[in-house]
C-alpha cells in the first residue's frame, strides 16, 4: 500500500495537468486531521460525485462530526475524481485516497458511502475499483475495509446488495456509533469477517444483505425473503433519532468554488404534507423540529466559524415549521449588520412566504422558486398537493410586484393517469403567470418552468404505479416546447432516458446488481451528468443478463405483490401506503397530518421514543399508552400518565 508521502509526491506531478486541482488536496479550514495511530477505528466517508457537489453534503458533515468527536476514532473524506484526474490516477497508480491524511481508502476500517440518489451507483463501484477494494462484498477478506452505504436511495438497498457489506437504513447519527463500537472488536471478538458482519446485522437499522435470501416467483416477482441467521430483524426497521442532536456548525470551508458554498442549519426533519410522489416526505417521518433559540445559536456559530456569506435554513417544507415567523425575525435581528444571504427553500405558495423571504434578504437574490408540481385540480388531488390556480397567480403576481424579476416554477409530468390536458394546463398556467406579472412589473419579468418527470419511488403510495413511457414523455415535452415559446419563459426538462434510468434503479431487485456491474464495466459512470449519458450501455447490460427494463419501469404492480424492498421499512406501513394509493385513484386529498393523524405506522413503531420525548419536538400526537415491557412486567396495564 502506498504511503501518504508517496501519494503526495505522485500528486505533485499530476495536479497541474487537471482542471481545478484544489478538489484533490484537502487543507480546508475546519477539516479535521487526527493522529492516525491513536485511533482504533478509521472511517472514510465518501460522496461518490465530484468534490464540488459532495463537499457541502450535510449528511456526511453530520457523520464527520459525530466520528471525529470520539477520542477513539477518526473520519476523513473522499470524493469522485473527475475523469481527467481519474485517468491520471490510474496511469500513475494512485489509489483513491482520503483528503485529510492522503492515505489510501483500502487502509481504513470502514468506508461509508452516501447514496442519496440512484445515479451514484456506478460511481460507487468505480470508486471501490479505484481504491483497489474488491467490488463484491463476497470477495472481501480480513484485510479489507467494511463497506457500508446509507442515504435515501438505500431505503431500497437491493440493487446494490452485492457491493456493500451492509446498509444503514434511516438516520445515521446514533447508528454510526453502534457500528464503530462493533468495529473496535474486530481484532478480538470478531476476527472472522462473517462474525463481524453478523454483529453488525444485529444493530437496529443495519441491513446486511448476505443474511437475507429472496425467493422469486415464476413471473420474476418476490415470493418471500428468508433470513439466514438467528437474531436478525425481518423487516429491518429504519433508525431515527428521537430528538435532533445539536446541528454541526464547523462546516468545511472549501478553498475553491463549489455548489452550495454555504453554511446550513436543518430546522426540521420530515414533512407532514404527504405529497404522494415525494420519497423524502414518506421516508423521513416523523417531523421533528428544532427550537428557535437552538437554530439561531447554531447559525451564529456556523457563520462565525466559517465566514460563509450564505446561510441556508434547511427543511422539506419551511413554511410548515411551527415557529417560522419567529425564526425569521430572530435570524433577521441576529445578522442585521452583516452581509449575509439567508435562503429558505421549499416555501408554500402563499403571500406569507414572500413576507418571510422579504425579511431575510441581505444581499438580494433575483429569483424566487415555488413548486406547484401540477396544474389541474384533478392532478393535484391525485398527488395530494392541493394549491389553487388563484393562489399561484396571486402569489407570483405579488412576487413580481415586489421587485423579483425571475420566478422559477417546478412542475412534474408523468404523474399517474396524467393526460395531455394536464400537461397543457402547465403551459397555460405559465402563460397566465407571466401575463399577470407583466401587468404589475412590465415586460422585464421572466419565468423559468422546470418540468421534470415523475419517477415512482419505493416506500411511497406510488410504488405500485408504472413510470410513464418514453413515447408519452416525449409527446408531453413536445407539447410544452410548442406552447411555451415566449422569449421570457425558459423551459427545462429531463431527458426520458434519465427518468427511465432512475426508474429501474429505484425499484430494482437483487438481479439489478449484475446489470449495474456490467454497465459500469462497459463505461457507465457519472450517470447524473449529461455528458456521461450512456443509456445504450445500460440497455445492453439488461440484455446481457436476460432482463427487461420494462419489468421494473412500466409494469403495473399487483395489489398484493411482495416488493423487493418489503423486508426493509421506513416505518410507514405498506397497508397505509396502499390505502393512500387507492385514495389517490379516487381523487381524495389527505390534509396535513398535523391536523389529523392518519396512523401511518410511525407512532406504533417508535412509541417508546415518542413516549420519552413528549410535547412540541415531534409533530405526531403524544403517546400515552404504557410501554409494552411495562405491561408484561406487571401483568396489567399501567394507568395513563
Amino acid at each position, binding site marked *: 500500500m502506498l504511503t501518504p508521502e508517496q501519494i503526495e509526491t505522485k500528486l*505533485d*506531478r*499530476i*495536479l*497541474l*495537468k487537471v482542471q481545478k*486541482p*484544489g478538489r*484533490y*488536496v*484537502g*487543507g*480546508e*479550514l475546519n477539516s479535521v486531521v487526527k493522529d492516525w495511530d491513536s485511533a482504533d477505528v478509521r472511517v472514510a466517508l465518501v460522496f461518490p460525485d465530484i468534490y464540488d457537489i459532495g463537499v457541502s453534503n450535510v449528511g456526511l458533515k453530520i457523520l464527520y462530526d459525530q466520528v471525529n468527536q470520539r477520542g477513539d476514532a477518526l473520519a476523513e473524506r473522499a470524493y469522485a475524481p473527475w475523469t481527467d484526474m481519474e485517468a491520471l490516477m490510474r496511469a500513475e497508480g494512485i489509489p483513491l485516497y482520503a483528503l485529510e491524511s492522503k492515505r489510501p481508502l483500502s487502509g481504513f476500517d470502514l468506508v461509508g458511502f452516501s447514496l442519496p440518489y440512484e445515479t451514484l451507483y456506478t460511481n460507487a463501484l468505480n470508486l471501490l475499483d479505484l481504491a483497489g477494494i474488491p467490488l463484491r462484498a463476497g470477495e472481501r477478506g480480513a484485510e479489507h475495509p467494511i463497506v457500508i452505504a446509507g442515504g435515501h436511495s438505500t431505503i431500497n438497498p437491493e440493487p446494490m446488495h452485492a457491493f456493500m457489506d451492509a446498509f444503514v437504513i434511516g438516520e445515521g447519527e446514533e447508528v454510526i456509533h453502534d457500528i464503530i463500537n462493533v468495529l473496535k472488536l474486530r481484532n478480538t471478538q470478531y476476527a472472522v469477517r462473517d462474525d463481524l458482519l453478523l454483529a453488525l446485522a444485529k444493530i437496529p437499522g443495519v441491513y446486511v444483505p448476505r443474511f437475507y435470501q429472496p425467493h422469486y416467483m415464476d413471473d420474476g416477482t418476490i415470493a418471500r425473503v428468508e433470513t439466514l441467521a438467528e437474531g436478525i430483524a425481518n423487516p429491518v426497521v429504519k433508525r431515527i433519532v428521537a430528538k435532533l442532536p445539536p446541528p454541526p456548525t464547523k462546516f468545511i*470551508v472549501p*478553498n*475553491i*468554488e463549489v455548489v452550495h458554498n454555504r453554511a446550513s442549519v436543518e430546522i426540521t426533519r420530515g414533512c407532514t404534507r404527504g405529497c404522494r410522489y415525494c420519497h423524502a416526505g414518506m421516508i423521513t417521518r416523523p417531523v421533528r423540529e428544532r427550537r428557535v433559540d437552538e437554530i439561531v445559536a447554531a447559525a451564529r456559530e456556523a*457563520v*462565525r*466559524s*466559517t*465566514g*460563509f*456569506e450564505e446561510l441556508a435554513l434547511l427543511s422539506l417544507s419551511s413554511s410548515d415549521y411551527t415557529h417560522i415567523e419567529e425564526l425569521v425575525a430572530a435570524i433577521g435581528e441576529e445578522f442585521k449588520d452583516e*452581509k449575509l444571504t439567508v435562503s429558505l427553500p421549499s416555501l408554500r405558495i402563499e403571500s406569507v412566504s414572500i413576507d418571510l423571504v422579504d425579511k431575510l434578504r441581505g*444581499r*438580494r437574490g433575483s429569483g424566487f422558486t415555488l413548486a406547484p408540481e401540477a396544474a389541474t385540480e384533478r392532478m393535484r388531488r391525485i398527488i395530494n398537493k392541493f394549491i389553487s390556480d388563484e393562489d399561484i397567480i396571486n402569489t407570483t403576481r405579488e412576487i413580481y410586484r415586489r421587485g423579483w424579476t425571475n420566478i422559477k416554477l417546478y412542475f412534474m409530468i408523468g404523474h399517474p393517469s396524467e393526460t395531455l390536458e394536464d400537461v397543457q394546463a402547465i403551459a397555460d398556467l405559465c402563460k397566465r403567470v407571466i401575463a399577470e406579472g407583466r401587468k404589475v412589473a412590465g415586460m422585464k419579468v421572466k419565468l423559468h418552468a422546470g418540468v421534470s418527470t415523475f419517477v415512482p419511488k419505493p416506500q411511497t403510495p406510488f410504488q405500485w404505479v408504472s413510470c410513464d413511457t418514453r413515447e408519452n414523455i416525449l409527446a408531453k415535452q413536445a407539447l410544452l416546447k410548442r406552447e411555451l415559446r415566449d422569449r421570457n419563459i425558459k423551459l427545462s426538462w429531463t431527458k426520458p432516458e434519465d427518468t427511465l434510468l432512475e426508474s429501474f434503479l429505484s425499484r430494482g431487485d437483487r438481479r439489478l446488481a449484475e446489470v449495474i456491474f456490467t454497465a459500469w464495466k462497459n463505461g457507465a459512470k457519472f450517470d447524473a451528468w449529461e455528458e456521461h449519458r450512456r443509456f445504450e450501455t445500460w440497455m445492453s447490460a439488461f440484455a446481457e443478463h436476460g432482463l427487461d427494463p420494462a419489468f421494473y419501469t412500466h409494469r403495473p404492480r399487483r395489489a398484493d405483490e411482495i416488493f423487493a424492498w418489503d423486508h426493509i421499512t421506513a416505518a410507514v406501513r405498506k397497508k397505509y401506503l396502499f390505502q393512500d394509493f387507492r385514495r389517490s385513484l379516487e381523487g381524495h386529498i389527505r390534509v396535513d397530518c398535523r391536523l389529523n393523524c392518519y396512523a401511518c405506522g410511525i407512532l406504533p413503531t417508535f412509541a417508546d421514543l415518542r413516549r420519552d420525548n413528549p410535547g412540541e419536538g415531534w409533530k405526531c400526537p403524544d403517546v400515552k399508552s404504557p410501554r409494552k415491557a411495562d405491561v408484561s412486567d406487571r401483568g396489567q396495564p399501567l394507568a395513563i400518565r
Partner: protein
Amino acid sequence: MRLRVAFSKQGALRYIGHLDLHTLLERAARRAALPLVYSQGFHPAPKIQIAAALPLGFSSRAEMADLWLSEDRDLVSLRADLQSALPRDIQILDVQQADDRAPALQTLVVAAEYEATIPDEFASDLTSRLAALMEAESLPRVRRGKTYDLRPLIESLEAAPAEGSGETRVLLRLAAREGATGRPDEVLAALGIPPESARVERIRLIFRD
C-alpha cells in the same frame, strides 16, 4: 483603515487560484470579525486587493494584499485574530497600515522573483543554457492562442546548487507589470526543464518606489 498584509501560501493552497484566494481572504476577515468595507450596489463586494496573481501550483513566501476596514484596529491583536482565522497553509508574515490614498497595490508591482528547485538530471550545463536564453534576441511563445515575446519579461536568471540535496536551484527575476508578466513555468520550458518536475516558489515581489 487600509491594511497591508504580507503572507505565505503553501501546501494545499498552492492549488487555489486568484479569485478563490480573494474569497478566502474575505471569509477569513469575517471569521476574524474584521469590519470589511464593502462596495455599494446590487452585489456588494469587499474591498480587497491582491498584489499579483500567483500561477496555480506555485508556493509563495511573498504574497501581499490590501484590505480596507471601516474602523481602526490595533495591528498586533488584529494579526493574531486574522492568523487564527486562516487555513494552516497561509501564514501571515507582516501586517502594516497603508496610506489610504496610495495607488492600487497591483499597479505598484514591477517584478517578481522565483526560486525553482529542479532535479539534477536537468542541471547539466545549466549555466550555459541560462546564458543562451539571456542572449537571445527574442523568445516568441504562444499562450492561450496569442503570440508574445518571453525574452523582455526575463530580467535575470541565476543558478545555484541546493546544499546536499541532489537538486539545483534556479533564481528567476521576471517582469510582473500589468499586461507584461513573465511566467516561471514558461521560462523553465524554454530552458528544456519540464515545469511539472520543478518546485517553484515565489520569494519576493518588487514594487516601484
